[in-house]
């Protein structure tokens, strides 16, 4: 009971593991490219929670700075990915990732 009521490192790691699992599930199962992108965002958020949790309980600033850079990279990644998806939609009239197979014989 004491373990449940005192918020420690394992609580944050549990939330992060769940977010990572849901993100992987979205990337694996969904056919809509935008929902796949949402899964990637969930995975990045899970990684950020881990960085900040370890940084807090270690007392250093390394995790905080790394999480800040992860947010910037996520913004760049979302912009590029959306631009690519809009181009795919212009060409194929669909964002279904399993129907974009014109390189296949």
């Amino acid at each position, binding site marked *: 009971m004491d373990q449940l009521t*005192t*918020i420690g490192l*394992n*609580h*944050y*790691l*549990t*939330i992060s*593991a*769940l*977010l*990572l*699992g*849901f*993100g*992987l*599930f*979205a990337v*694996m*199962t*969904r*056919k*809509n490219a*935008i*929902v796949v*992108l*949402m899964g990637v*965002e*969930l995975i990045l*958020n899970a990684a*950020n*929670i881990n960085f*900040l*949790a370890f*940084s*807090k*309980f*270690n*007392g250093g*600033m390394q995790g*905080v*700075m790394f*999480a*800040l*850079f992860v947010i*910037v*990279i*996520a*913004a*760049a990644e*979302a*912009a*590029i990915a*959306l*631009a690519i998806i*809009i181009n795919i*939609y*212009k060409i194929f009239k669909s*964002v279904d990732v*399993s129907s974009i197979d014109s390189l296949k014989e």
Partner: protein
Amino acid sequence: MSNSTYTVIFYLFAALTVGSAAFVVLTRNVIYSAFSLLFTFFGVAALYVFLSADFLAVTQVVVYVGGILVLLLFGVMFTNSIMIPGQKSEVSNLFFGALLLLGVTGGMLYTFSASPGWKISGKTLQGSIVELVGFETMSHYALPFEMVSILLLAALIGAAFLARFDNKGNS
């Protein structure tokens, strides 16, 4: 704030984060996914406050909710004919996806519970970290800071170039 209030609020935000993340991946409607992601991002920002990273929490709200989520909604509305009611996005590999979800999450939770506790440092982060972030950015992390700003500039110019309206009329 007493310890039990702190615990209750933590569990509230944890449940909000995990529940809305589950709704993002389980609902078939893309618009519902996008709006549920809003609650996930807010819940994660609240968890950042619990981790005494207040600057990161504000950045999360500004960048994720104000930037990335709006971009995703633009993407949804550009590429889906949302005016057709009852349109669902398709799902494949459901079995292997569920296997991956259960395997990864269960394996990690088992590792946490089976491993002996973490060695917590005597001095954890306390209070506001805004000042510390400023010092670190301008001292140890000056080079990564400049590099990431150039990367962001290049990525945004590239995105604008890729997604621009083609005025030759053949799009």
